[in-house]
């Protein structure tokens, strides 16, 4: 009876697909560690493999155009005879690279704004308005604007994705900072004559770090998907470079001719990377959320 109840409760939570059934009683913390391991393995694997493939390995060849998946070409070949496994791996490597960079930039921006907001009322107001303003704009329109203004290309994508993902995390951090600063123990520390720096280091930071880590992990899949989206629309990576967005937009034209493998494997790859981080981020948030209760 208890087992059943637990199973039902667990089934309602997001769970990583490859997670074996017999481990369904995993604690939140262990789940976070497991999904983290999976996500990191995926991303590091893709990055390392992509880094070790020389850039000019991806070659066009009129003799191998539009081949269906086979032992020789596991993911098939594209309209110009390039091996899709190679192209997908390189593309994922590029996506992950851009995603990581953008997540770092966005997190750094969020932390800065979150801390600035805790200085005084005016700063808090300014950060609050800026955050709401950015959240109010449709995110993708903003992405397109920045990418276009930066002149497109890889640089445009990195800037666009990096500069537009901070508001959500910034809002969380601002609220968290406000909550901590208003608490009794901070008041006591201040009363004892502790400097604002000491308070920030000893009281504020320990509360913010879990939020920052979870925020970073959650920004990452969004950044990857947005990179793919921009390239899909032709605003991002130039079309001869490996990119999931470019591959998917190309495959759209070829779907009518029955070339399903052009969209399937790269789409699946993108989904797996994004999903693994989404699950990891969510578990991490739950594991570190004091209100959630750690088993």
């Amino acid at each position, binding site marked *: 009876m208890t087992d059943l109840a637990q199973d039902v409760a667990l089934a309602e939570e997001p769970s990583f697909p490859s997670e074996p059934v017999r481990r369904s009683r995993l604690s939140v913390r262990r789940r976070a560690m497991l999904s983290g391991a999976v996500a990191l393995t995926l991303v590091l694997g893709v990055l390392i493999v992509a880094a070790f493939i020389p850039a000019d390995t991806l070659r066009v*060849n009129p003799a191998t155009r539009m081949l269906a998946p086979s032992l020789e070409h596991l993911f098939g070949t594209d309209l110009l*005879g390039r091996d899709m496994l190679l192209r997908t791996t390189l593309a994922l490597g590029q996506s992950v690279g851009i995603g990581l960079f953008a997540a770092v930039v966005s997190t750094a921006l969020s932390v800065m704004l979150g801390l600035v907001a805790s200085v005084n009322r005016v700063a808090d107001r300014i950060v609050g308005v800026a955050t709401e303003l950015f959240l109010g704009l449709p995110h993708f329109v903003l992405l397109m604007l920045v990418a276009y203004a930066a002149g497109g290309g890889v640089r445009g994508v990195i800037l666009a994705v990096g500069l537009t993902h901070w508001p959500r995390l910034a809002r969380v951090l601002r609220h968290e900072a406000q909550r901590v600063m208003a608490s009794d123990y901070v008041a006591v520390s201040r009363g004892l004559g502790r400097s604002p720096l000491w308070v920030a280091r000893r009281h504020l930071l320990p509360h913010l770090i879990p939020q920052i880590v979870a925020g970073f992990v959650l920004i990452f899949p969004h950044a990857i998907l947005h990179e793919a989206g921009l390239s899909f629309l032709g605003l991002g990576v130039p079309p*001869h470079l490996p990119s999931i967005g470019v591959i998917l937009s190309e495959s759209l034209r070829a779907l009518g001719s029955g070339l399903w493998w052009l969209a399937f494997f790269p789409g699946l790859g993108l989904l797996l990377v994004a999903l693994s981080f989404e699950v990891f981020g969510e578990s991490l948030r739950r594991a570190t959320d004091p209100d959630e209760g750690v088993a």
Partner: protein
Amino acid sequence: MLRSLLLASSLATLLCVSPVVAAPPLVLAVGGEPEAGFDPIMGWGRYGNPLFQATLLKLDANLEMVGDLATSWTLSEDRLTWTISLRQDAKFSDGSQLTAEDVAFTFNTARDAGGLTDMTILKEARAVGPYKVELELKKPQITFTSHLVALGIVPKDHYGANYSRHPMGAGPFKLVEWREGEQLIVEPNPYWHGGTIPFPRVTFIFGDEAVALNLARSGAAQLVAVPPTDADMVPAGMHVTHVQTVDNRGVMFPTEPAGGTTDTGAPIGNDVTADRAIRVAINQGLDREALVALALNGHGTPAYGPVDGLPWDNPDAHVAGHDVAAARATLEAAGWQDEDGDGVREKNGVEARFPLVYPSSDSLRQALALGFAEQLRALGIIAEPVGASWDALARQMHSSAVVFGWGAHDPSEIYALYHGSFAGVDWYNPGFYRNPVVDAHLDAAQGSADFTSSLQEWKAAQWDGTTGFGAKGDAAWAWMVNIAHSYWISDCLDIGPLQIEPHGHGYPITQGLASWKWTCQ
């Protein structure tokens, strides 16, 4: 209900037994909708067949000039004045007479309007009789004849601000309805001087390519332009025709060494492509058939020059290509050696490496750029593909190799692409190519007494036995492919002999629309 059915069936029987086989209304999806409407003075008809307006001359299937409104056309001794006699039975679709006044008005207005019909060379058009007109030029230019072919004559009395939406002329058709972005419906002009047209009405469908394909599959359209990837999946009752074209794509090389800048600060020149040996070797090594297979799904022909198959093409200027050994020998002889063994040749410390820019919105040019770069590796030359917007491309085109496309029924295009006076002008001659001998040939061609005698000079500009802009001479470009234009055509539709089509997919096939026939009962 029953009665109306009976009535309908008896009507149908009546129609069936009538001795004249009536052709059905025709539905075409071949693109070609003009943004600015149907005003020849604003550029309508420059891809041929202005539908509503008649032209002085027209090109037959062999691209020979034949009279349409003109019955005779002669150039004066000083090569500055065309005297043109007009046919006297030409009427506008409202029944009024077309006279020399209308022709003079059209040419003078086009000269003053500027825009897409660049007629600044015209000094004045004068009506010297009711059916005789004189066109005086500022300087000799034999390709002025292309204006005689392309410029539809508008009625002087009906030309105004609304003309582009309500066109009227002496051409084979009159406008019924134009819904922008959707369709254009035309009916035969009963006053047309060229005979009767079998189709009671012709509808042009615009918009999405997928819509056109579906119309053809459902039997609702009789002729559609199809992209090469879909061309081979022909619906029942139709056949596919791949029309030969000069809709070409090639790589333009900067022929100046690096160092200069344009007035706007864009860099000019490239030290690698400025070496003739590099350009010649690329032309010798290029396997153009493979590019046709790679980028066009096989639906195209190798391009050896900008005007393959046109009357002014010089086959002697062509280099067959696909000869890697010859290309390597050319490079070795010129001092391009791979001394450090990295697969890339060097000469005087300069690596054989240059950027190859293509417009990133064009998947065909991307495929060609990648295929071109891939083939060049075998020669020890690295072309680095760069995808760019058209704006960015324009800033890089004087210092980088660029994938461009041209192709027109008018040799003035090769004048603009290769004459020194066009260096850096708009999109023409972006590589700053200059060869005084070629310039002299091109100028001599423009100054010819008649079009036929100009052909020799156009050909000599490509290769005159010692030099030329073609691959045997300066090899200023490496032409890659001519894109075949593919169409699905109803088995009942006979569209007669076809021209070699110019740049721009689709609309040029309607050139002979007025003489198309319906062959089914």
